[in-house]
């Protein structure tokens, strides 16, 4: 990441992330608010549809006419 976090540890173990099977959740013991839920919407788009993200937030009318770029791997391919 940029800027570099204070501490970061990673391994080679991978997790698949798919737009149809991934959700942001507010922990049941946590606070929530409109800032957080709107951030979830933004980051879902940034992660899975980066090429259309900026139009969506700066020009929502234009974005309605843009076709979303579908991920190459379907959820069915990832079921196991």
């Amino acid at each position, binding site marked *: 990441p940029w800027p*570099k976090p*204070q501490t970061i540890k*990673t391994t080679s*173990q991978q997790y698949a992330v798919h737009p149809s099977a991934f959700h942001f959740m507010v922990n049941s013991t946590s606070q929530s608010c409109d800032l*957080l839920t709107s951030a979830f919407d933004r980051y879902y788009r940034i992660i899975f549809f*980066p090429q259309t993200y900026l139009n969506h937030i700066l020009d929502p009318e234009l974005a309605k006419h843009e076709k979303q770029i579908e991920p190459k791997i379907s959820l069915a391919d990832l079921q196991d």
Partner: protein
Amino acid sequence: ATLLKRLNVHIAQPCEQYPSLESDESYSLTIDSDSAMLESVTIWGALRGLETFSQIIYADDNLGFAVNNTMINDFPRFKHRGILVDTSRHFISVKTLKMNLEAMAESKLNVLHFHIVDDQSFPYESRTFPEISLAGAYNQAHVYSQDDIAGLIEFARQRGIRVVVEFDSPGHTQSWGLAIDILTHCYSGGKPNDEFGPMDPSRNTTFDFLKKLFSEVASVFPDHYMHLGGDEVDFDCWRSNPDVQAFMLKMGFGTDYSLLEQYYMQNVVDIVGATGKGYTVWQEIIDNNVTVKADTVVEVWKDPYPQELARVTKLGYRTLLSTCWYLDYISYGSDWVKYYMCDPHNFNGTDEQKKLVVGGEACLWGEFVDATNLISRMWPRAFSIAERLWSAADVKDPAVAKPRFEEHRCRYVRRGIPASPENGPSYCDYEYNR
């Protein structure tokens, strides 16, 4: 590979309405099962953690998108990580300002220093004094309405970014005086010469006007801090004006016009202080011995900056550094390396003095910048300031940072932000296409 099904977000404290200089932006992020966890004290830390989470997910030929097993503990080294945007020398469209705010959030920068007015134009549409922008803006399309400003503040708030507005005076105010008689009338040969200088401190009406204007500004911009400028005051016009000369005698200032500047700024800081706001000022205010509130933030912009930082912190003021981060100066090659090497703790001082440095700002003055080139001139060069102000002090080798810098530029391009190439020949998997 296991499918990552969710990111659980836990925020310990109720959400605050607006970020502040004191906000806690720390977070921890753990990805070690089909449920990841993001924990923070405040909403602002959660926003920073979400940005990091978005950056560690990558496109993978086999999996579509993937993320590795990861543990991150993170917090900023400095609390004030700013960008100055000048909207007076050229008007910058609201859409461009929003794109810049988005770009700031994606590098964890958290203060927009909105240098909204200056000599050249006054695009702030005041509720109390609408005549100033009517006369002082370039034209009536080149203004920021109250709705525009509210929209920008909200856009910034959603990203944990403070908007600190600057109304610089007594100099840099030519555009203000086109509608309201607050500037000093300059004289030559004993007669007014139709030229105007800084605001006229010899007239009470000047301060009556400022009380009303700053009262409005304090209500429009929610941040605790307002930037009061105070830099580059030219004394020649004050010297020429007989009323100012008489006022100097009356006040016992002799011929020392820095005392008049001090008198002016003392009045202004008292006016703004009475609104309940704190203030940021350019370093000249302190250089000229104006008495300011204890929570004042002093912005150092002159060289030699190590000596300036040492002097201001020795006086006990919280301090920002911008001297080495003037992005309007351009050259051929990789400018980002010299910005990356500059450090706000690069001065001789005690640990207590170092703690008074609260951060810094990249400054992009607008003489040669408008909406056509603001984003590509700002980015990726402002990455350097973002990492210097967020990451640990020992993250300082540009050769080590270069691959991440390149990756981050390509991330911006992929996300639709036209960050320009800074390292010579290269390519991004997704090139800019707009």
